[in-house]
């Protein structure tokens, strides 16, 4: 017996971008955004990349046609620079992992809270932390985590330690700062995806014999992967490109790529070398996007 038709809902409507934009005319609406993107993002970025292939001359910003790989050779042969690449990537991965572990339960709770009032309250909690300027939030953290900050003072007062714990001006401080900054982005990436997992899928798994943990591991978690990957990519990209957090929480002692870029350009006026470090940072982000894409294809089992 053959059965046809009767397709059910719960499916994204298939429409092409061309149809949605009604042929060509609606493209005109996108033009301003495109021009803005071209003028204020693409042009500066390309010129920065171009200048990185010029010989470094302190104080000179003019692009010449005498291209050289000197700057890049220097980055990949001096340990102070290439170890910073690894440090940036390492911190990015650790921050993404911590944000995921902290953010997933929160996102799950918000996604499953049906009570409108409670849901709004939770969302406000997440979003409110994004309303404050990053510098102000970092100073707040410094009050908490400094040598004479709340944590160390309390522990010394309680007699648990005699010397203040090194909570700041090191990698630990930078990671804590970055997690604080990026956590809302992770949570927001996850909420929509988790909410889209129909509760009956979890229930079906349970009635087929899966415990709560098994149902989570075999159904909810795999179906959360698009959000997990997107959130991790976002947090990783924000972390490796952050200057304010490593500057304030790391006290210029944790040498990550943005710190080098700032030092080279703002302090030494070595635009060409700074641009080369920026190019390395940019390529690192692109590689992360590539890894994200591969992982997305792999975890979806070739369904997309």
């Amino acid at each position, binding site marked *: 017996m053959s*059965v046809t*038709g009767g397709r059910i809902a719960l499916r994204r409507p298939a429409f092409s971008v061309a149809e949605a934009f009604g042929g060509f005319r609606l493209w005109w609406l996108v033009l301003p955004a495109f021009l803005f993107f071209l003028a204020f993002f693409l042009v500066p970025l390309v010129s920065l990349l171009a200048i990185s292939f010029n010989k470094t001359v302190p104080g000179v910003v003019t692009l010449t046609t005498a291209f050289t790989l000197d700057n890049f050779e220097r980055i990949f042969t001096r340990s102070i620079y290439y170890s910073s690449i690894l440090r940036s990537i390492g911190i990015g991965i650790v921050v993404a992992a911590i944000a995921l572990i902290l953010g997933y339960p929160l996102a799950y709770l918000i996604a499953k809270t049906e009570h409108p009032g409670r849901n709004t309250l939770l969302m406000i909690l997440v979003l409110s932390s994004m309303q404050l300027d990053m510098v102000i939030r970092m100073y707040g953290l410094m009050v908490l985590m400094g040598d004479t900050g709340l944590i160390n003072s309390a522990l010394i007062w309680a007699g648990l330690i005699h010397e203040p714990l090194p909570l700041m001006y090191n990698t630990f401080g930078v990671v804590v700062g970055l997690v604080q900054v990026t956590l809302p982005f992770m949570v927001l990436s996850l909420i929509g995806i988790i909410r889209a997992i*129909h509760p009956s*899928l979890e*229930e079906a798994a349970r009635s*087929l014999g*899966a415990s709560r943990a098994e149902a989570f591991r075999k159904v909810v978690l795999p179906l959360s992967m698009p959000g997990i990957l997107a959130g991790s990519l976002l947090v990783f990209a924000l972390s490796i490109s952050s200057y304010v957090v490593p500057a304030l929480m790391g006290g210029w002692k944790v040498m990550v790529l943005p710190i080098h870029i700032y030092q080279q350009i703002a302090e030494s006026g070595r635009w060409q070398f700074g641009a080369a470090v920026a190019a390395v940072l940019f390529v690192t982000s692109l590689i992360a996007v590539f890894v994200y894409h591969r992982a997305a294809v792999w975890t979806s089992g070739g369904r997309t």
Partner: protein
Amino acid sequence: MSDIRLVNLTKSYGEGNAVSEVNLEIGEGEFFSLLGPSGCGKSTTLRMIAGFIRPTSGQIFVGRDDITALPPERRDIGIVFQNYAIFPHMNVAENIAFGLKLRKMPKAEIARRVEAALKQVGLVGYDDRYQRQLSGGEQQRVALARVLVTEPRILLLDEPLSALDKGLREEMKFWIKDLQKKLRITTVYVTHDQDEALTMSDRIGVMSKSRIVQIGTPQDIYERPKTLFVTSFIGHSNVMDVTVARRDGDMVVVSLDGHEMSARGAADLQPGTQAKLVVRPENILMGAALGETGPRLAATVLSETYQGAIVRYRLKRGSQEIVAERQNQAHVERFAPGTEITIGWDPGWSEALTA
């Protein structure tokens, strides 16, 4: 011996009850439907049996075991959802194997059972497909196969046909019923569709406002409704205001605008009280079809609607409109609008209910 027993099952949310003191016994191999409008508590009852909702009070037994406190995974109860809940990240074979893998069955045995299940639901060769490549009917078959392959003690079906279009719904109705009969699996079916319930069930429990109002075979429910709600929810009915005159053995004599007539009636109908007389449209007899017994009433034909297999009449009797339906058979008598006719019904096919 009953397979499922619900004892005073109640679920309250805040002030109101979603399910109130439901008592029910469902026999082994029985196809039992919970029928009612949305919000009547039928789905909540089903979800309590499945273990997704904890009852506020009352007990659920399967066989001799009290399963009220067991989590869903330890109940050995299979459920098919309205949206089928096919795992979108697994193909058909992996979906069906899901429950077997959890039971730590050897791989070869799983493969064998998955194949057998696919054959049973007529989806041989669908192993590698994903949910988005399946039609609604196919998804439903996968959902059934996924449940049946684990050989559950009880099968729960939560409005499984409501997402399908009409033609397919008719086909699946009989297909599911046949499969259930063949497997002799105790089944609880939740639906708001009277046709499904009447066609598929061994017995039906009609629910209204969190309570079960009548339990019976499809014939009982349709022909001997116990309340006005059951009458109006299942099929169409003509409801007439009458006064109870007296009891007459099993029957009751009622007065309709001074015409006395016999009807079936509940034992609690007191002489002198107001009651409702209920007659189905297909039991309104007209013209030459009138039998020996029963009332004779004058009526005027308001309209005649041709509907293919049946012809439907709107009639005016006194101040009330009455709907009559007749099979469109050979030599059937037809009545033009405006015609004055005599109507009546067999007393055994009229029901007096408490007003």
